[in-house]
């Protein structure tokens, strides 16, 4: 369960939002706006587009707060997934053809160096995931990030990277399989 220092869990906030508790909505927005915007701007690159994406994500979260099912995952993952999918849609509409992401987030996550601020503030689980990603061979790490963050299919990765389709599929599959063995699934998020 995600909770903040005020002790109110994300799930409780969603329940409050579903029945019209304005404080719950405000707390939720303030709790998540930096995370969702950070992810959005990392994917779409442009601040204005990222704000649009983040706002649309919040609208969908408000709209569906009453049907959120905690058995299917954490609120944070749900919110991040909504944001990620909207960001990918935004890129597709705007650019048509995916371009090579060279934004700060991608470059940072490709690096094996420790992130200066984010890593220091990140939870232990997130740090573990970061470490596991950093231990992947660079080709696999890149393929996994392109797929997981940017929604690239194996075909798009093969075309973008100039590699055979089978190689792209292998990099994704092997990278994900290796992450699965190094991440504690039960405590991943």
């Amino acid at each position, binding site marked *: 369960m995600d909770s903040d220092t005020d002790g109110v869990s994300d799930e409780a906030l969603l329940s409050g939002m*579903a029945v019209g508790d*304005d404080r719950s909505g405000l707390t939720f927005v303030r709790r998540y*706006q930096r995370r969702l915007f950070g*992810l959005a701007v*990392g994917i779409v690159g442009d601040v204005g587009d990222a704000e649009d994406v983040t706002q649309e994500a919040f*609208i969908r979260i408000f709209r569906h707060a009453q049907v959120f099912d905690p058995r299917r995952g954490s609120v944070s993952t749900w919110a*991040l997934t909504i944001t990620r999918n909207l960001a990918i849609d935004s890129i597709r509409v705007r650019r048509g053809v995916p371009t090579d992401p060279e934004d700060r987030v991608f470059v940072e996550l490709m690096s094996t160096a420790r992130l200066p601020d984010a890593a220091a503030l990140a939870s232990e689980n997130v740090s573990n995931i970061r470490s596991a990603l950093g231990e992947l061979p660079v080709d696999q790490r890149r393929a996994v990030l392109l797929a*997981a963050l940017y929604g690239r299919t194996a075909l798009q990765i093969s075309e973008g990277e100039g590699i055979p389709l089978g190689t792209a599929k292998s990099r994704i599959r092997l990278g994900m399989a290796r992450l*699965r063995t190094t991440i504690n*699934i039960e405590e991943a998020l």
Partner: protein
Amino acid sequence: MSEHIEDPTSCEEFQEDLTAIALGTLSGRRRSEVLSHVESCPQCAIELEQLSVVADAVLHLAPEEDPPIGFELRLARRLQADAAPRQTNRFRRVSYLAAAALIVVIGFGVGALVGSQNTNNTSPSTTANLASATLSSHGQNVGEVFVSAGTPSWMFMTIDSHSWSGLVTCELILANGKVENIGQFGLSGGYGSWGAPLTSPAGQVRGARLITASGVVLARASFRA
């Protein structure tokens, strides 16, 4: 659900597609075929669940970042616009009220900020009793302070000074010359927003200032009488 257990050797052909489903990159007929297989294959169901956890975990790695100033108000307006046409049942009406209430809470704080940036401002009526003043530091605009008259009266401020992190104290200067300390909040990388109820009448507020722990006035604002 079928009790039939698939031959594990036949599962190999699904491995790459299970990964693609977990990553959200497989669609169409093939996705349906794979999910149909998963329904009857506990081994692949576990595989997909675990791969999905891994794919979700990557999303948590993106660093946090502050959205632009005014984000909350623009969001509140969009929430209101989104909810208005969908008042078809009790829950929708409640959600609409929640969005409207969010505007009351957020709007009085950031509404005038957006208004000051947009001459075609259509601020909600909830901002009618708002007074706003620019927060300045060394001659530069670094944010806004808003005071809302009501029961209770509130103040809200947003600051983006790009220069300072740490706790700051907010003081209000009243018409009778008194200085009222109304609380502290944190700035991160020069950015922060904060609100608090007022103990004095909103109409008596003539100014506000933010003071660092070492006593340096970081920014100040003046309200017209």
